[in-house]
């Protein structure tokens, strides 16, 4: 397993300092209480882009730093610690990956520099139901003239409301759940016939439902090959899963550390509650799960950077283990804080709410256990 190099250590430290100072949990509270339309702070995002975080994985030729996914994971882990809401996952991770994997030279030249510069928000529109099923695509793209016409709906698109560019997963042939027959399209968010509804989620992050009614796109809007889009989609999703898992490890780690501090300061029955062995063992088990999950996330990100052949299994492993430990850490955070943890004034609730949304995004633990078993041949 790769240990961090000097540049990575600097990147992580920079991310930690910035998030702790400029983007503490209070920043998310503010976005929530002011009912921010975009769900993130534009000024903060500009800061992040200026520090190069929007282009961590993007090739230097397109204005990025070409630092790789493990490096982006370091930034995501820090933003996860403070529940920082930003287009990092939707744009700098997911959309950038899709363009890098499937984009033509022209498409990459057109969009990657803008993403690296933080000039645009881009979003992948894949799911059509409340549960993640990337091969179940009913939204149709039918040939018309030299281009295509898109009809259908998408649900819970990350930053779908504020996105300038949408990468829409559509069906050009085959049956509803076939992997062949899926095609990815680059769609301008201002396109005629595209309707967006922002949703108000428990974690206060911005997602949107999309309705496409006769949306017309040109032939050069196709990302990758017609009918062959699923391969790119799955590779993109695995990278998004590993990156999101890194954010989740950060969230879980911070939740654990806050709780551990509370165990050391809160007293009952004339004792620090952290001296009660039942709580000590629960804390020790949680720490164990955290360390185990951390290894999976790092291994998945390294595998992506090393282009090894077990990326799919490791991405499912990372997402599932991060989901399990974040689930436990957020529940223990509330329980071990007692009554105060139930109040909106305390951060515990925010960590738990973010936890559940992140758990469900790009497939929950149950989805990835099943996928891991399929990949393992059982």
């Amino acid at each position: 397993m790769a240990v961090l190099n000097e540049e990575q250590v600097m990147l992580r430290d920079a991310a930690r300092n910035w998030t702790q100072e400029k983007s503490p949990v209070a920043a998310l509270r503010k976005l929530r209480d002011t009912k921010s339309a975009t769900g993130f702070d534009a000024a903060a995002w500009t800061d992040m882009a200026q520090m190069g975080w929007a282009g961590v994985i993007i090739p230097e030729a397109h204005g990025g730093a070409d630092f790789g996914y493990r490096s982006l994971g370091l930034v995501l882990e820090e933003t996860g610690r403070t529940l920082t809401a930003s287009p990092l996952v939707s744009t700098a991770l997911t959309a950038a990956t899709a363009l890098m994997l499937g984009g033509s030279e022209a498409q990459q030249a057109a969009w990657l520099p803008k993403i690296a510069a933080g000039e645009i928000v881009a979003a992948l529109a894949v799911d059509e139901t409340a549960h993640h099923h990337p091969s179940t695509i009913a939204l149709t793209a039918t040939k018309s003239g030299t281009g295509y016409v898109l009809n259908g709906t998408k649900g819970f698109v990350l930053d779908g409301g504020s996105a300038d560019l949408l990468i829409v997963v559509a069906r050009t042939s085959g049956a509803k759940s076939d992997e062949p027959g899926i095609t990815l399209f680059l769609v301008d968010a201002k396109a005629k016939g595209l309707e967006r509804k922002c949703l108000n989620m428990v974690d206060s992050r911005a997602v949107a439902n999309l309705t496409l009614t006769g949306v017309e796109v040109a032939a050069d809007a196709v990302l990758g090959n017609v009918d062959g889009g699923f391969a790119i989609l799955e590779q993109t999703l695995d990278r998004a899963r590993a990156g999101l898992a890194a954010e989740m490890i950060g969230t879980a780690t911070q939740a654990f550390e806050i709780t551990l501090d509370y165990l050391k300061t809160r007293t009952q029955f004339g004792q620090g509650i952290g001296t009660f062995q039942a709580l000590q063992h629960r804390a020790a088990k949680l720490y164990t799960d955290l360390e185990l999950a951390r290894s999976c996330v790092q291994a998945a990100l390294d595998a992506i950077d090393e282009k090894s052949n077990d990326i799919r299994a490791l991405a499912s492993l990372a997402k599932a283990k991060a989901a399990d430990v974040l689930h436990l850490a957020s529940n223990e955070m509330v329980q071990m804080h007692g009554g105060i943890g139930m109040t909106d004034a305390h951060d515990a609730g925010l960590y738990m709410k973010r936890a559940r949304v992140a758990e469900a995004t790009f497939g929950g633990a149950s989805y990835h256990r099943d996928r891991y078993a399929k990949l393992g041949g059982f």
Partner: protein
Amino acid sequence: MAELDDFRPETRAWLEANCPQSMRTPMPGEETPWAGRKGTYKNPDTKLWLDLMAAKGWTAPTWPKAYGGGGLSRDEAKVLEQEMGRIKARPPLFSFGLWMLGPVLLEYATEEQKLAHLPKIVTGEIRWCQGYSEPGAGSDLASLQTRAEDKGDHYLVNGQKVWTSYADQADWIFCLVRTDTTVKHEGISFLLFDMTTQGVEPRPIKLISGESPFCETFFTDVKVPKAQLVGKLNGGWEIAKRLLQYERQNISSGGFGGAAGLELEQVALSHVGEVDGKIADADLRARIAGHKMDAKAFVLTVRRVEAESKAGGTISPATSIIKYAAATLNQHKYELLVEAMGHQGLGWEGEGFTKRELIETRGWLRSKGNSIEGGTSEINLNVVAKRVLGLLDHQ
């Protein structure tokens, strides 16, 4: 049992004649009859039904008639309950006075105090709240610091309570105060006073679920007449514990646990989809089945414990597990529910979600309190280990 044979038809007839039709329908949360001076009645039948039942003392069926109660025997009360259930009549009154304070007043209060407070509980005229927990005294309740100083004809109360349910809606409070700072449990007294007294200030606490059922309540030089002390001076801890028993019974039998998992599998079938009649996600299906079995085991245990307690005349030791089991079960149910609903189960408000989905999501958040309020699960497990299993304290 002859008079019991008459009691049933009479009761049935009276209910048929007096229970408004709208009171025989499921009760929406906003129509809960908390009554009290500040009570509002979205549906006028709610007030009508309360007054009719209160007039017969049937809001407190087994309390003595002298205090406004129904004066019914256990068996008659059972019949009343059955007959109300038959027509799905709503409970006429929700009240901490009925569930918690009343029973201890009957046990510990003076005749004057009983006459002063019990009838107004029966009619719902006075709504009560509970002044127990403090910021520094949660699981370790007896470490409470709210002072009540002896000023001759009255006590002067200063301090702060927290988790006072609906203190902002309540008319009176039953409150644990420290009347001796030199000892712990033996320095606590049980006071009653009016929430409109000068110096009482409740501030609602917003929960992660968005609701505010609890308050922080501040006391600044609150004057409480000595006649409003219940039981002996510094004898409040015994009363407090007794009242907590009523509260736990109420928490564990009431609301959650019992009804757990009722429609969970339907939600899963609709949100996750099905494959030849089975929930499409086999992993989730297995976990839902496991939960449904736990829920059934819980219901059967509540029944068994009731039967054993009734037969044995003593409380079955298994009673001690009910609150812990109920909390665990209800939280597990809601986690599965939210998981089954996927992103549809993670909405806060507004478009894109059904009312049912939004209610369940809030319920999930609210359920996190089940293992904290009225004694944390950790305390429950300590109690089982020590009182039931006879394990000793760590030295």
